[in-house]
């Protein structure tokens, strides 16, 4: 919502114009530490995972040493209960998780943004039908849908990407629709319509670029949610299947060795937390960079903001644990949209 306000206030059509209209210091803004921390975490995982995929020091699927060895120079993170090298397996698990989260969030973004653009731009019955279907899908906890869809189309990486992509598409539809409705009435869109620009071109060239900020933020926070959801599915035995390494399943299988070698649990747990936190930091950093929020407490510096207080409720959906994953985005958008839509 705050993004929408910025766009409205600036009153120009394109993204560069928005930067021009902002004060000089704001224009030279660089992404903050949160953004770079996210990039650093995900980047490190990508580098290690790539290295371990192309030049693995050990075969991730066969026994290479004694069972449950501790850290050593040969096996940096030790070995698991059947003597497989933990570092290689974790790196591959991280790779799988990163690919699944990125691809699923991308699929969700494409499908959801398309739905949101159509619903917001066409309006009327089309909007009502699409948004009610979106509501109905969001009424189901993500993990339930993921479990049922997993049973329908099977387990493994590609079915997971498809099912998680479908599950999170509605959240993008909501995030996309609100700015599109605001933009639809703007002069530059009307001008484009009057000059006979084709509808699909208006939607793709005039509306989409102006509504990209929430889309980026949503992408990263959905990716974070996907990481947690994928881990939970694997923990329940429904995600990536053995013998492919997966952090969630490592935790469920190795909990019984927790007393002997805590590292067996700590390392995969840390991997999941880092992946999810990395995406989250990226989301927060993008949000701060693209639409700065005010800060300050009692007696802090005040800054004038356009719009009412409620329009500034936090836009970024902080990621939630898997058990209630979709609803994080649901709740945010409901907070920002429900009362206002209904009141207008």
């Amino acid at each position, binding site marked *: 919502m705050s993004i929408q306000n910025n766009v409205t206030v600036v009153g120009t059509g394109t993204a560069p114009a928005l930067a021009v209209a902002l004060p000089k210091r704001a224009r030279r803004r660089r992404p903050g530490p949160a953004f770079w921390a996210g990039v650093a975490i995900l980047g490190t995982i990508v580098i290690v995972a790539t290295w371990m995929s192309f030049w693995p020091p050990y075969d991730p699927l066969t026994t290479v040493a004694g069972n449950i060895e501790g850290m050593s120079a040969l096996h940096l993170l030790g070995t698991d209960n059947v003597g497989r090298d933990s570092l290689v397996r974790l790196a591959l698990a991280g790779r799988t998780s990163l690919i699944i989260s990125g691809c699923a969030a991308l699929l969700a973004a494409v499908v959801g943004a398309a739905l949101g653009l159509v619903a917001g731009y066409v309006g009327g019955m089309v909007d009502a039908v699409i948004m009610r279907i979106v509501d109905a899908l969001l009424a189901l*906890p993500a993990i339930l849908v993921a479990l049922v869809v997993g049973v329908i189309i099977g387990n493994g990486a590609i079915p997971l990407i498809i099912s998680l992509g479908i599950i999170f598409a509605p959240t993008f539809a909501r995030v996309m629709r609100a700015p599109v409705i605001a933009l639809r009435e703007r002069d530059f869109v009307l001008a484009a319509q009057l000059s006979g620009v084709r509808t699909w071109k208006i939607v793709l060239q005039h509306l989409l670029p102006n509504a990209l900020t929430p889309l980026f933020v949503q992408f990263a926070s959905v990716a974070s949610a996907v990481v947690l959801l994928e881990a939970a599915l694997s923990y329940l035995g429904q995600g990536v299947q053995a013998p492919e390494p997966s952090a969630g399943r490592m935790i469920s299988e190795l909990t019984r060795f927790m007393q002997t070698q805590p590292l067996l649990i700590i390392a995969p747990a840390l991997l999941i937390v880092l992946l999810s936190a990395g995406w989250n930091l990226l989301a927060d950093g993008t949000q701060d960079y693209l639409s700065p929020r005010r800060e300050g407490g009692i007696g802090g510096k005040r800054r004038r903001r356009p719009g009412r207080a409620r329009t500034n409720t936090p836009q970024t959906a902080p990621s939630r644990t898997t058990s209630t994953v979709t609803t994080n985005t649901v709740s945010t958008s409901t907070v920002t949209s429900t009362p206002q839509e209904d009141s207008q």
Partner: protein
Amino acid sequence: MIRYIAGRVFSSALVLVLLSVIVFAMVRLIPGDPVAAFADPGNPDPEALALLRAELGLDKPWITQYFVWIAGVLQGDFGTAITQPLEVSELIGDRLPVSIQLSVMATIFGVIIGIPAGVLAATRARRLPDHAVRGASFIFLATPPFVLGTVLILINSVTLRLPLIGYVRLEDDPLGSIRSMLLPSLLLGLVLAALVARYTRGTLLDTLNQDFVRTARAKGASPGRLVGRHALRNALIPVTTVVGIELASLVGGTVVTEAVFALPGMGSVLINGIRSSDYPIIQAAVLVIGLIYVIINFAVDLIYPLIDPRVRVHS
């Protein structure tokens, strides 16, 4: 106001109808024959299976099956489970209270931890307490529940030594029941608290920047009064919505927590239903969870104008 309520009723009803269609279609897409469980795997008798299908109504077209199912659901009859001799409505009636109790307790934990933490962070923005709260909430939100659960179990094993598993029913022993659910609800509550703290901090900061708060401060209100009497009341309005919706989604979203603590709630009903491809159970579980979500959302929408006069004026 009446138009507002009517609009909400209509769209909630529409969502429910769509939900039932989605649930029904989704369940039909599950591969696997539910009557196969009765057949001798080595030598299935096609005639007996056909007879069984006819008995369960599985031979009729999907449309007919859907309306037969819906007609039953409207009378509170979810049919009979296929793989076990059990009325589905009885099973749900047995398990739903467990999930509701868990969700309510988790919400209580979430609110009593989350709101003070959020207030602390907002009133001391960008100082140590703020960083601590934000850091903690960030970590809780990025940690999968089974990891958090494992940590809680470990901590519990050296400190409080609360019972880990063995759910006690609320009607049998209220105190013991609450005790048996302390750990799982604390786990869910911590995650909710992280979310609530984030929202409280954000909205409270916004409110503290408003003119009426400045006026109150100019008139000499103490910081405590400023927050408690003026800012917090306004700031908590959106937080109420978040808590309501989270409560709604907890009811069905506790699958993992139930698995970690072996609780007999809706999540385990659904997982068992999926594992045995028992259509009526899956349908009923998913529909009931969706129904609760829609009802609580509806309730939140109705409460909203009561606590926020601005919404009332605009509608």
